[in-house]
């Protein structure tokens, strides 16, 4: 049986900008047991007066990356205006800083290559983060499981991991990445330009078929609309796993 999950002091060993409001942080832990794609960590910040606040952030890195000596994970965090933790991470934290982390957490919203596919991933905004861990794991494990990512962003410059997604989609492993840009589209954009709906899900799902395992992560409204639409399209509810992070807009 695994050791109980405990708080431990993580050290920030890397900071990287993903978009104007999204940044990735590499956290090195003294005792990291490894993780599975889709899991998250809790971060706890404590002020000198004892006030403390906790938040959960999905792990973005593949388990294979964490298995290297030292035990580290990468999280990707969107800066939420007035967000107590995300604003601190964005505005204050630099490499060498330390704060408390516990994890990995979660066994429900998890995909491993051994589970097989086909795999349909549906993301809204920073909901792409745990799905990126799954795609990085898929690549690191050499999995050829047919997979499609449907990813809703407000505009082209808000797409997180865009260069890496382009590379993964072009590596011949059977991954397709489909973007929809809901608010602004670059000149010449020929892709989807509306919120995720049943017609869009039907088109993206078609090459995978009704046996697809589905993981949906994003704002609550997007997640519930997509999950309900996929069930209407004939997918068993047990094949559709969701992670809502609250009813903010995409």
């Amino acid at each position, binding site marked *: 049986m695994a050791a109980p999950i405990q708080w431990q002091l993580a050290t920030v060993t890397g900071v990287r900008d993903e978009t104007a409001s999204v940044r990735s942080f590499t956290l090195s832990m003294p005792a990291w047991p490894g993780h599975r794609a889709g899991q998250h960590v809790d971060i706890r910040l404590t002020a000198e007066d004892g006030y403390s606040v906790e938040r959960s952030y999905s792990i973005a890195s593949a388990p294979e990356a964490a298995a290297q000596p030292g035990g580290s994970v990468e999280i990707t965090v969107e800066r939420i205006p007035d967000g107590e933790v995300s604003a601190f991470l964005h505005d204050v934290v630099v490499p060498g800083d330390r704060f408390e982390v516990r994890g990995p957490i979660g066994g429900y919203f998890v995909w491993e290559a051994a589970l097989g596919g086909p795999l349909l991933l549906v993301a809204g905004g*920073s909901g792409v983060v745990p799905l990126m861990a799954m795609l990085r794991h898929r690549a690191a494990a050499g999995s050829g499981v047919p997979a499609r990512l449907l990813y809703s962003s407000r505009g082209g410059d808000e797409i997180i991991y865009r260069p890496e997604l382009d590379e993964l989609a072009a590596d011949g492993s059977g991954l397709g990445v489909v973007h929809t840009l809901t608010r602004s589209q670059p000149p010449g954009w020929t892709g989807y330009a509306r919120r995720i709906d049943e017609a869009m899900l039907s088109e993206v799902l078609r090459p995978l078929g009704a046996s697809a395992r589905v993981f949906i992560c994003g704002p609550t409204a997007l997640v519930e609309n997509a999950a309900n639409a996929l069930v209407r399209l004939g997918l068993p509810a047990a094949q559709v796993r969701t992670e809502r992070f609250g*009813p903010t807009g995409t």
Partner: protein
Amino acid sequence: MDDDSVMDSTGEGRVDGNAVGGMLAMVFGHEMTAAPGRCAHCGTINEMGAMHVYMRGPGVVVRCPACGEVVLRVVEAATATFLDARGVAFVRIERESA
């Protein structure tokens, strides 16, 4: 997951059981989001990660996604954690799972 956004939302604030996975792991001493539990009200079995969670109050309320009734309530006070589990008929906790 990026639950600062939960705190800033103006909607009903529903998230998944995943969001309290860390707290449940501390309470039960075990990863719990994949643990199936039976709602004491309607009898539906769902994994804890699929339950609906409301965490913007002073405590955490876990509700059955089928009938909406309260399954668990958890309050973390300064020196103790209070668990009200009268809404769950059983929870299956795997001894060998990670």
